[in-house]
């Protein structure tokens, strides 16, 4: 990082207990964020390994690299892992780490509930992932359509792990969402009005509402499936006249908002990166906020675009088609505003900036193929082919993952006090950029040339060989890219160049404190008078000659003071939430409680009861001591 003159003193890690226990018992949003980050990265690698096996099997026609059964488990777990265990928690890592820092708070509203969310996530993730080692992993696809997932057609334990696992993970996401909604509404520093919030916090805010409204439907759908599988109810029992579309609707009522849950945090992150490295305020802040809200809101009215082939009828198809197309408008506004943010700016091609720019370039491709899906007759040729696989990897990998990497390179210095190595970062970026296009662009072709998705093998002479081979090579590039990143990520913690509090010359509160931030974040809660407090502080006249627009507050010296020293909270007399493992214990109870169900599969009723009741006791006991013990 030649661009920044690093201060000599390597920032000492925020003074706080160390050792394994301190992590298990932590209630510090920053440490929980770090836990989320590491865990989610590991799951990302697991999901990627699954993808790598998938691609190897598909490299050539009629390959025998893995069996059909294994393959079906691989793509199911790949999708489930990437969505629920990698990208969502990666976003959660940033929610945890950044939101309090960006709004000038000392922690989240419910620190212990926050810890609870993490531990439920970790244990639920392990629960749903382990079975793959024993060849009994879920194999119903990531949207587990009934009736294939009912006991009649999937009598093994595979689907049980999926149903229970997702149920548990839902609890984690919901608990976290209530927490962040409260935090953002109620813990903003004086002067931090809603329309002064950093864009990442804004997008996260929208996402929390998507979470609390999208998860109940899938919870219900899963409860039905769970009861069908374990207690003989008839929700998806064909012989009893059940309608398989019930599952599909309930799932996608969740499923589509879910995809915006996956992308909006990434949008938020690049909205922080782009202004920083263009030395310009975000173009059209208000419109960016409104478009984010619009995307979230419209997201609840388009779910059936995943079901154009089920025969809903011309009227329903038309309505959902039009609703879907509408979403292109607010999303487009974002794309153009980002470009406009760089326009007339001073664009610095740092690694985070490259990833941010790549998101604009790549997400647009995925968005356009999305609009092609949104036209039902056209989609009848595309649905359940590799064209869809191409679409969602361009938005998910080219969008979410690119954005998250931008965020990681951007905030790593804040989290660790050190830069990620830029040379390795560039290698990672270019391998990643080329690799993803080599992997996913050919899928447009194989899809339009008739290749169905979710097939463990394909015959020779179908005209798909070349595109599949290219995709597989691309994947190997991505593996190397990710390996480079992992190496950089681990190594820079100790070897990276020291960064100091505000390495990039950014504008928002999180940069006004040392890196890594002290446990109490802000020695005194800052007062905010504009959207870009740090720029005001550094150069009160920075936005002279601007076409005054939006809330930039009172130009001139900001009341903010940059903090460079880190003390202990005690020294400053700041009350901090006590470390406690009670949430972790309660989380364990929750998972044990649910896993008791597994024993019903082999009619071990007594065992099932014991485990479930034991788990329930742990959960309730944990909650009781937790709720009755003081927070700080």
């Amino acid at each position, binding site marked *: 990082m030649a661009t920044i003159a690093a201060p000599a003193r390597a920032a000492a890690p925020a003074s706080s207990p160390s050792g394994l226990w301190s992590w298990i018992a932590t209630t510090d949003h920053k440490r929980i964020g770090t836990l989320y980050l590491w865990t989610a990265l590991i799951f990302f690698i697991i999901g990627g390994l699954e993808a790598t096996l998938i691609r190897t099997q598909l490299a050539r026609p*009629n390959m025998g690299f893995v069996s*059909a*059964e294994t393959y*079906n488990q691989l793509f199911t777990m790949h999708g489930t892992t990437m969505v629920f265990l990698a990208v969502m928690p990666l976003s959660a890592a940033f929610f945890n780490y950044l939101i309090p820092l960006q709004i000038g708070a000392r922690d989240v509203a419910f620190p212990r509930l926050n810890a609870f969310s993490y531990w439920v996530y970790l244990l639920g993730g392990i629960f749903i992932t382990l079975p793959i080692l024993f060849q009994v992993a879920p194999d119903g696809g990531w949207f587990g*359509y009934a*009736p*294939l997932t009912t006991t009649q*057609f999937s009598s093994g334990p595979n689907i049980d792990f999926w149903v229970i696992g997702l149920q548990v993970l839902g609890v984690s996401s919901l608990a976290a969402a209530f927490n962040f909604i409260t935090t953002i509404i109620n813990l903003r520093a004086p002067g931090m009005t809603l329309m002064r919030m950093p864009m990442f916090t804004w997008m996260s805010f929208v996402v929390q509402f998507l979470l609390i409204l999208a998860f109940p439907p899938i919870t219900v759908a899963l409860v039905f499936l769970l009861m069908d599988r374990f207690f003989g109810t008839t929700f998806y029992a064909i012989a009893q006249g059940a309608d398989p*579309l019930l599952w599909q609707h309930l799932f996608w009522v969740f499923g589509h908002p879910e995809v915006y849950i996956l992308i909006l945090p990434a949008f938020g992150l690049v909205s922080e990166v782009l202004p920083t490295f263009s030395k*310009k*305020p975000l173009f*059209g802040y208000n419109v960016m906020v409104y478009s984010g809200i619009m995307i979230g809101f419209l997201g609840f009215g388009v779910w059936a675009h995943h079901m154009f*082939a*089920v*025969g809903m009828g011309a009227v329903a*198809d*038309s309505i959902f*088609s039009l609703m879907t*197309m509408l979403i292109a*408008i607010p999303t*487009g*506004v974002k794309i*153009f*505003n980002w*470009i*406009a943010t*760089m*326009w*007339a*700016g*001073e*664009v610095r*091609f740092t690694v985070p900036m490259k990833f941010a720019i790549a998101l*604009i*370039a790549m997400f*647009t*491709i995925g968005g*356009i193929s999305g*609009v*092609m899906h949104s*036209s039902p*007759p*056209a989609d*009848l*040729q595309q649905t*359940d082919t590799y064209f869809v696989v191409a679409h969602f990897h361009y938005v998910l990998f080219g969008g979410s993952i690119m954005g998250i990497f931008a965020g990681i390179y951007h905030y790593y210095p804040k989290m660790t006090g050190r830069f990620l190595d830029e040379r390795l970062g560039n290698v990672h970026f*270019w391998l990643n950029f080329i690799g993803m296009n080599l992997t996913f662009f050919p899928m447009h072709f194989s899809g*339009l*040339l*008739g290749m*169905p998705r*979710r097939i463990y093998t394909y*015959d020779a*002479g*179908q*005209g798909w060989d070349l595109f599949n081979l290219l995709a597989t090579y691309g994947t190997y590039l991505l593996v190397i890219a990710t390996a480079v990143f992992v190496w950089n990520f681990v190594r820079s913690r100790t070897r990276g160049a020291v960064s100091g509090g505000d390495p990039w010359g950014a504008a928002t509160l999180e940069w006004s404190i040392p890196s890594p931030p002290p446990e109490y974040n802000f020695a005194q809660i800052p007062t905010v008078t504009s959207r870009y407090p740090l720029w005001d502080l550094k150069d009160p006249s920075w*936005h*002279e000659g*601007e076409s005054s*627009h939006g809330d930039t507050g009172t130009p001139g010296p900001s009341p903010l003071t940059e903090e460079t020293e880190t003390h202990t909270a005690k020294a400053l007399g700041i009350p901090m939430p006590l470390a406690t493992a009670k949430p972790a214990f309660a989380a364990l109870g929750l998972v044990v409680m649910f896993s008791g169900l597994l024993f019903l599969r082999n009619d071990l009723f007594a065992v099932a009861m014991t485990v479930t009741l034991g788990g329930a006791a742990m959960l309730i006991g944990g909650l009781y001591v937790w709720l009755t013990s003081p927070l700080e």
Partner: protein
Amino acid sequence: MPKLSLRHAAPAALSTLALLALSGCGFTEYPNSTFNHHTDFNTAIDALFQRLLFWGTIVFVVVEVGLVYTIFKYRKRPGGPKPRPIHGNAALEITWTVIPAVILVLIAIPTVKTIFQTQADAPAGALKVQVIGHQWWWEFRYPELGVVTANELYVPVGRTVEFELTTKDVLHSFWIPQMGGKRDLISNKTNYLWFTPNADLGTSAWNGFCTEYCGSSHANMKFRLYTVQPDEFASWAAHQASAAVFTATPAPAPTTPVTPVAQVTGTDTAATAPTGGYVFPRERLETEFPHVIPQTPIPAGLTFDDALLAGGDPVRGATEGFLLGGCIGCHAISGVPGAVSNIGPNLTHIASRHTIASGLYKNDAPTLARWIKNARHMKPGSLMNTIGRGEYDPIMKMTNTGGLDDRQIADVVAYLMALK
């Protein structure tokens, strides 16, 4: 350095997409391409897709060129201009809200038109075909013609064919890329799909796929479509409707009762031999439609003494093997007393089909023999249990001590191969 590469990366991707845009012509050559106009359905869809492709390409070019130009023009460089703190511009933002909206209208109108056009009721006089999904094969019934067959469809060109889609078990989806869009087969629901193969479409063969994940062998749930001339279709249908004829000579009219064993005249096992009714000529497949000929390799470790096939006795196959092997429990052969089950494909005229195992393997004696010996070894999860004596059944997880030995299987093969 970065700016340079970015400058190259985008145009590269750009040109590839432009390529995709030209694909209207480029990709029609591919065997399962969706860029074709063999039916009214397909023509309507492709017109719409070309329009989507057109606007998609424009949006793509505008965004990527704008992006690359911006980052290049405003890259940080010594003595470059000081960044201007612009906070926004209402006029601009309205522009790039309105323009996409207009484009979307231009897409939405034909979309809705096409939805209602393609989902209207099928024109009167359409040929009705019932498509019934099974894990993992296709049952096809022509109610008006009394034809029941599996995994290979015949339809006459120039006449609308209406498919009535239902499933016996889980969800499946019926798709012939070259003919048009797909429709799901949904439990407790009947779906419909119709199209009209162009009248000028020559006799040809197409691939069909199951495109809804349906379990272990979803990938292997394929089928074939033969678009044939009306007279060819009539001949095919008439013969398929007739009871099993245990001979290589032309079949008697369906009215005359046939007792399979009685009529034995020869034991020709070559599926290509001339038959009673029209069958899509295999040699044309090899020369013109190689992509509909399965190339799935027979799994290693599944051996059969092919020498026995020559000596296979169809009569013994019919009277002994077909019963001992338990085939009769799942497969129907019209004309054979007791063979009425439709758990498995109808075998009445199996020898007139070019593939077995839902399009997974060629239909010839050696393959059929191995299939009968250990179907589950050849098709993951297959519901047809392992019949070969001493064969390991991967689902039962046990070796079959009963069942048929290779010679008995050879007999059954001889019998089936005679069912033209």
